[in-house]
C-alpha cells in the first residue's frame, strides 16, 4: 500500500504502441460478460474517467471483485482499491488510469476525454491479462 504503488502499476501496465499484445481469451470473455464488449468497457471507462464523474485528482480502475467479476471503480488522489476504506468498489486492480492533470496536461491540456480515449493505444494487454489470471486466484499485482 505504498504511495508509489499506483505509479509502479501504471508504468508496468503500459507499453509502446504496437507492443501491447491483446487480452487473453479469459479476460476477453470476462470483459464481454461484464460490459457487453470491449467497446462497452471503453464507453463505461470513459464515463467513469470524465471530469464530472471523478472530481479533482484520482484514478479509475478495473478490478476483480470478491465475486470474481470485473467492475469499474474510481478512487480520489493516490488511493487505490486495495486500501481499506477506499471509495468505490474494493477489489484487485488489473487496469488503471491516472486522471490527475499532471498525467495529461502537457499534451492534452484540459481535454481529459481525448487523453482517456487515446490511452487505450498503450495498454499492455499481455500484462493486464497476466494480472487478471492472478487476481482470480486472489493475488494482487506486486512491485
Amino acid at each position, binding site marked *: 500500500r505504498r504511495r508509489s504503488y499506483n505509479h509502479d502499476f501504471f508504468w508496468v501496465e503500459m507499453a509502446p504502441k504496437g507492443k501491447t499484445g491483446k487480452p487473453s481469451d479469459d479476460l476477453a470473455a470476462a470483459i464481454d460478460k461484464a460490459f457487453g464488449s470491449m467497446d462497452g468497457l471503453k464507453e463505461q471507462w470513459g464515463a467513469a474517467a470524465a471530469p*464530472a464523474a471523478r*472530481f*479533482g*485528482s484520482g484514478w479509475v480502475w478495473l478490478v476483480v471483485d470478491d465475486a470474481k467479476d470485473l467492475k469499474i471503480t474510481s478512487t480520489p*488522489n*493516490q488511493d487505490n482499491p486495495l486500501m481499506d476504506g477506499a471509495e468505490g468498489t474494493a477489489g484487485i486492480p488489473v487496469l488503471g488510469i491516472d486522471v*490527475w*492533470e499532471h498525467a495529461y*496536461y*502537457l499534451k492534452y491540456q484540459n481535454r481529459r476525454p481525448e487523453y482517456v480515449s487515446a490511452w487505450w493505444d498503450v495498454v499492455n494487454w499481455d500484462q493486464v491479462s497476466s494480472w487478471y489470471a492472478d487476481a482470480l486466484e486472489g493475488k494482487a499485482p506486486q512491485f
Partner: protein
Amino acid sequence: TAGRRREHDLLFSIIMPAAAIRIAATTTRKTVATAAARSKFTLPDLPYDYGALEPVISGQIMELHHSKHHNTYVTNLNAATDKLASATSAEDVTTIVATQGAIKFNGGGHLNHSIFWKNLCPPKDYAPPDGDLKAAIDAQFGSLDAMQTKLSAMTVAVQGSGWGWLGYDKAAGTLKLATCANQDPLEATTGLVPLFGIDVWEHAYYLDYKNVRPDYVKAIWKIANWADVAARFQAAKK
C-alpha cells in the same frame, strides 16, 4: 424565450380579453418560474489581458484556465441548477440529492475562480498591503512575510487538487489561513470569508512550473492584488 412568452401574452390579452386574462396569468406564473429556473451564471471577464501576469503565470495558462476550465464550471453550474430547479418542481427528491455533488463542484469552481482573477494583478501594479489590512496581518501572523510563508507551506501540502486561502473569521474577528479540497468553496465549507486564494490544481501551474508547485506558490505573491484583498476585508468586517 421568456421575452417571447411575454409578447405572446400581450397579443392574446388584446385579442381575447376574458380568456386571455386566465391564460396570461397561468403563462406568466410559468414564465416567472421558468425564468427563475433558467437563471444564468456567466463567465466574468478578466480585469487584464491573458498575458498580463507574466512572467509569473503565462498567457497560455491564463487563457486555458479562464476560457476552458472556469468556463466549463459556469456551463456545468447552469446545467446543474437547471436540473435542480426541474427536479424541485417535480418534487423528485432523488434527483435533487443526486445533483448536489455537481452543484458543489461547479458552483465552488465558479465562486473560487471569480475571486482568483480579481485577487491577482500584473507584476508592475504590485503594492504591499497597508492600513487596516496590514495591521491585521501583522497582529495575526507577525508580518506579511510570516503569513505568506505559513500559507505557502499549507497550500503546497494540499494533497491532490485544492486551494489555499487567507480568510476572515467573522465570529472571532480575525484573519485565518485554511485549505480546501477540490473546488469546495471556502465560505460554505468553513464559514471563513475568502480574501485571497491560491489555486493549486495542476492546471493552474503545470504548463509553466511542471510539478514544482512550491516555485509557483512562492511566485504568486508577486502578483497578489492587495487592494482587492483589502476591499474584501473591509466588506467582511461589516
